[in-house]
């Protein structure tokens, strides 16, 4: 859809969208509670966009992206803790590693379709969890890693939360820019073709496995950067946190699905709806009845799955079409609908 638009228009929409996303931070910068929520919102928006590259555009419903997230978190933290390597450099190595190794470990699962692929990648996450608990020398085992608070730009540790908000915002912008560039490139079209019909894509001369590998590599590298940022922000990481299915591994996919899978803006919309709602509900309901906020959130997920198959982005697009329809004057109502829709696309 967006790929048909001219370059100038796409990037000005991108800039406009970023300004809009920055607006809540500008308004709430004085409120630490909301700044903290925005930090997570930007981070998870970026992660959902990263997941969406292979999960949405490529149609490979991965539930194993928690592994890349965790690899980024652990490696960046250890590079900093052991050898004093600045996290700014320390986030590059795991990103490259995840791109290469991640693609390689996903490779054998590419022959699996649909839910089998999802279950297999879910198993990766669980193997990761077991190994993180076991390999105490690397991960600190069940106790995890603690990063001492030494605020400095080079340490990527800031006393001012607003700097973190801006950093997470930049991460989201990076992921979005990568996704937009990808979807305007040959590889992007190949990914869509593979998602729509693998056999047809193959018949059309597309190297299906190579396309899936490249898509995974890109997606994994970005997820790893998100993990690195998360580690430096919370400064304490342990296996149940970074390998959590509900909060990490499956969450990326859920945010993308709620927002609108396989669209540029969908994952961001999903994160902007769910992360603040979740944090707010946890603060207002979680104290009295533990778990109540998750009951509400689970119901939202259920209802979204049942009544908003194309997510928020899809619902907005449908509403937009309905709103625009009366403006199009056609001499033969009914017969011209497909043509007029194509004209608007």
């Amino acid at each position: 859809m967006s790929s048909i638009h001219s370059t100038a228009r796409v990037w000005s929409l991108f800039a406009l969208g970023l300004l809009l996303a920055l607006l809540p931070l500008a308004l709430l910068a004085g409120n630490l509670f909301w700044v903290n929520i925005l930090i997570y919102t930007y981070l998870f928006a970026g992660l959902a966009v990263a997941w969406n590259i292979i999960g949405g555009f490529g149609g490979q419903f991965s539930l194993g992206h928690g592994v890349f997230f965790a690899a980024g978190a652990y490696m960046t933290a250890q590079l900093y803790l052991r050898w004093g390597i600045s996290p700014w450099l320390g986030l590059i190595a795991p990103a490259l590693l995840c791109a290469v190794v991640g693609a390689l470990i996903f490779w054998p699962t590419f022959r699996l379709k649909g839910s089998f692929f999802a279950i297999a990648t879910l198993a990766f996450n669980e193997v990761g969890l077991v190994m993180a608990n076991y390999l105490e020398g690397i991960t600190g085992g069940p106790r995890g890693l603690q990063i001492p608070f030494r605020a400095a730009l080079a340490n990527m540790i800031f006393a001012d939360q607003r700097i973190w908000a801006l950093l997470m915002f930049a991460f989201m912008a990076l992921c979005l820019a990568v996704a937009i560039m990808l979807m305007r490139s040959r590889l992007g079209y190949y990914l869509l073709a593979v998602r729509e019909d693998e056999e047809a894509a193959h018949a059309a001369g597309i190297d299906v496995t190579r396309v899936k590998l490249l898509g995974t590599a890109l997606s994994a590298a970005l997820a790893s950067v998100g993990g690195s940022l998360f580690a430096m922000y919370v400064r304490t990481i342990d296996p149940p946190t970074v390998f959590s299915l509900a909060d990490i591994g499956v969450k990326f996919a859920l945010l993308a699905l709620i927002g609108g899978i396989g669209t540029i803006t969908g994952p961001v919309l999903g994160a902007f709806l769910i992360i603040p709602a979740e944090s707010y509900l946890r603060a207002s309901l979680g104290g009295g009845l533990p778990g109540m906020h998750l009951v509400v959130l689970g119901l939202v997920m259920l209802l979204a799955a049942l009544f908003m198959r194309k997510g928020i982005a899809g619902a907005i697009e449908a509403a937009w079409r309905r709103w625009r329809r009366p403006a199009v004057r056609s001499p033969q109502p009914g017969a011209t609908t497909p043509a007029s829709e194509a004209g608007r696309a």
Partner: protein
Amino acid sequence: METLLNVLVVGILLGGIYGLVSIGLNLIFGVIRIVNFAQGELVMLGMYGAFLGFSLLKLDPYVSLLIVVPAMFVVGVIIQRVVIQPLQAESSMQIFATFGLLTVLQNLVLVFTRGEGYSVNTAVASLGVSVGEIRITATRLIIFIAVTLIAILLHLFLQKTLLGKSIRAVTQDRQSARLMGINVERTFMITFGIGSALAGLAGVLIAPIYTLSPGIGGNFILAAFAVVVLGGLGSVAGAWAGGMIVGIVEAFAGYYINPELKQAVWFLIFLAVLIVKPSGLFGQVGAEEIGFREQS
């Protein structure tokens, strides 16, 4: 030799538990191909059902089966009607919706129990048989016998009865099944109900062994998918064997390699089987494609 035998017995009994918690999913995922991530929570509900019967009505868990199993059938039918039926043809939306369901069920129980752990007692808890050094508790023996019995009955049900045949028919080709006069929607509903009832039965039978917590379903769900896929989709005997494999591998890996790595070992075996032979060890080749083709 004694140790080896002991580990083997432990593994087989553990395999019984894995087989039992998977047998409902074997029907729901293995036969009608619904990706139900909330299956572990159905087992959890069964456990809490046993606890309710035990604490309110002073029922022995084995007696409360008479109430819990039919109740879980109804729960399954409702879930199928409300959540699964509208998403019949969309497997990624099923993952999403059942994950939402999992979150709701798990946290509803958390809200009601306030996170307190419960345990269920039974009259047979202290019983057991000893063969030399090896001791087998009655609760685990009952589970092993139950899973074996249910596997045989379920196999006969699917192969011999009219309803069993129509369940297999709607999985293979919905359109033709409808033309043959099968009520497709009703068949799916009943199958999901039976799968849920079996999960409830598993929950009741394992309730005396585990401490009850709202998140306990999470311990079973990946194991259950592993068992169903390992054994072979839609093969009841395969699922029984899959449970045994997972249990025995876990027991041996835990004893001879490292207790912390025991699960990683069968995860890797599961992944290997999934990748090399997605139809499972005892499944028909190509079985993984059935039911996922586009159907109207």
